């Protein structure tokens, strides 16, 4: 069985045409993706876009309606049991036992995976995730950040080869998030593949590769630079006073696809550079505003993708 896994040592996830419906509503549509071993792969998309469903199909928690593929070289339809042994899945909602202590939760996981010495494995993990001194605290009483560390600790405890993290940093403070990402990078450096879903743009930029999914469709993938370049979006950053007036004026004008405030500045973007310039020309001379040619941010790209996909799939 390990020989099967060794046939494709460099591709951790390789799936084609995954489709899944719930109650007649298609949640994931014809999704294909490849994730190379040792990469941190960011999975982005709005709420309800099918990220969680896709992750669940990858680790055997859901059976795809159609499509197939492999996870760590094992067939996601037939070899769910083997995949489960090699995959650590961190659920979106905290899903360890709230009424067990930190130590008891980790020992439970260690025993379930048949680690030879569950006690010492749990002890080592507690030290590693910095929960020393809190071993006997009930998991339910931990704060959000600690819960998240415990959950990560639990899913890395059995030494998985692939981590599936479903919005692991939702509701966690910036310091804890940074620590978390440092840990993820350390794990990836050891050869672990990480698929992580997130809403945060700064986190997306910490990934080696990203994929954007909306309404069940995979819309873009590649490195952050590739995704931005592939968007063909032109953006101006406007600074100055009365930006609200400008926002109101630009709304609905030709060539303007998106106007978004970023603190004291405004991002004005359009897919058609010529049309955008034509509309913008009449405002460029206004002394209140300073216009600057700039790169679209990842967020601009995603909001644009989302808007377009809405037209395509929901219209």
């Amino acid at each position, binding site marked *: 069985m390990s020989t099967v896994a060794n046939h494709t040592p460099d591709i951790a996830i390789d799936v084609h045409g995954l489709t899944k419906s719930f109650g007649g509503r298609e949640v994931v549509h014809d999704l294909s993706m490849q994730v190379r071993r040792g990469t941190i792969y960011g999975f982005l998309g709005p709420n309800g876009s099918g990220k969680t469903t896709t992750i669940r199909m990858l680790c055997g928690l859901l059976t795809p309606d159609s499509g197939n593929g492999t996870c760590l070289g094992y067939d996601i339809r037939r070899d769910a049991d083997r995949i489960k042994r090699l995959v650590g899945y961190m*659920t979106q909602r905290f899903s*360890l036992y709230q009424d067990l202590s930190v130590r008891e939760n980790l020992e439970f996981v260690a025993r379930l*995976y048949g680690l030879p010495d569950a006690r010492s494995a749990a002890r080592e993990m507690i030290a590693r995730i910095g929960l020393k001194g809190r071993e006997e605290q009930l998991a339910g009483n931990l704060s959000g950040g600690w819960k998240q560390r415990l959950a990560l600790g*639990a899913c890395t405890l059995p030494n998985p080869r692939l981590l599936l993290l479903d919005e692991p940093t939702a509701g966690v403070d910036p310091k804890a998030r940074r620590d978390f990402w440092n840990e993820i990078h350390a794990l990836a450096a050891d050869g672990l593949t990480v698929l992580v879903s997130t809403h945060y743009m700064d986190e997306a930029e910490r990934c080696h590769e990203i994929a954007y999914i909306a309404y069940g469709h995979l819309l873009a993938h590649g490195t952050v630079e590739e995704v931005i370049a592939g968007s063909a979006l032109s953006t101006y950053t406007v600074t100055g006073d009365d930006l609200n007036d400008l926002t109101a004026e630009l709304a609905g004008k030709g060539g303007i696809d998106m106007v978004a405030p970023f603190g004291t500045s405004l991002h004005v973007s359009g897919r058609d550079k010529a049309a955008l310039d034509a509309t913008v020309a009449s405002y460029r001379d206004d002394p209140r505003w300073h216009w600057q040619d700039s790169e679209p941010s990842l967020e601009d790209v995603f909001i644009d993708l989302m808007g377009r996909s809405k037209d395509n799939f929901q219209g």
Partner: protein
Amino acid sequence: MSAIDAVHPMVEAREPAFGFWRRSYAMLVKEFIQLRRDRVSFAMIVMIPVMQLLLFGYAINTTPRHLPTAVLIQEDSDLGRSILKAMENTAYFRFTREVHDVAEFDDLLKSGKVLFGVEIPRGFERAVRRGDKPALLVAADATDPIASSAALGALGALVQTALEHDLHVGDPPDMPFEIRTHARYNPAAESRLNIVPGLVGTILTMTMLIFTALSVTREIERGTMESLLSMPIKPVEVMFGKIIPYVIVGFVQASLIVGIGALLFGVPILGSVLLLAALTTLFITTNLSIGYTFSTIVQNQLQAMQLSMMFFLPSILLSGFMFPFAGMPLWAQYLGEGLPLTHYVRIVRAIMLKGAGLANLQYDTIALIVLMLVAMTIAVTRFRRTLD
């Protein structure tokens, strides 16, 4: 402008007219909507009263008739036959078996296959004609006083009836023979002797069922099922892991009830304590398996509780714990055979009060094992390994 702003929130914060009724109404509407969405709860609202009514109305009979009776005929005589006929005519007795010696008699009573045994002794008719006033022996299983007392009471009038029809010797007021009744196992007809052993089973049914009925739904409701399913564990392993701790809990519980029963209520344990412990453990496991099966069927903890109630109610009514089993119509008896409590009530009464051994209890033991295996099989196949 700022003056208005300052006043405005105070106006808004005023208690609206009919505030109490509006808020109560809002709550009421919400509850109705939720109730309507929970189909199972809705069904239970109808099912539980209907079931109770039907069971009490049609199945429960506190003066049971057609009770299974064994006869030991040592003499084939007209008088003997007419006495048996008269007994059957009372509608209390139904002769289901004919035995050939006293040992067979005892076995049937011990295992609970018959509730009465009638013995017509050798030379009975001749003794009557001679005026010797011989005795006709009727042995009754009095562990359940409700079941046996009415039938025993009817025996008094029986001699009279038999005399009128068939016997023309001697003066009627002067009884030519006597019916000697022997209320076995519980001669004083004390109901606690009957209740306490049955209570062991009833309490165990209630507690065990609920323990495991909640176990899987709890994992689902708390969200822990998702991570459990993502780990390499098999349905059978989940089941055993969830059942075994409660076997110990149940065993402690059973020991407590039996211990208190013996100490405070003087209920004897005539049979083997070891056998009682073994079969009690089997019964506990059967109940836990059934509870676990419920757990894999229902959607949430409320439904699990309701399904347990749906199972517990007929268990109490149809098992012979509260009302005589033999007195129920046949369909209710068949239903009762499908309930573990029925078999355990027989087992526990037989061991504690009659001193029965495993040989007497084969049928009920096998029935419990079968029920357990069926429940476990359903549970393992029903257990959803995915979140589909």
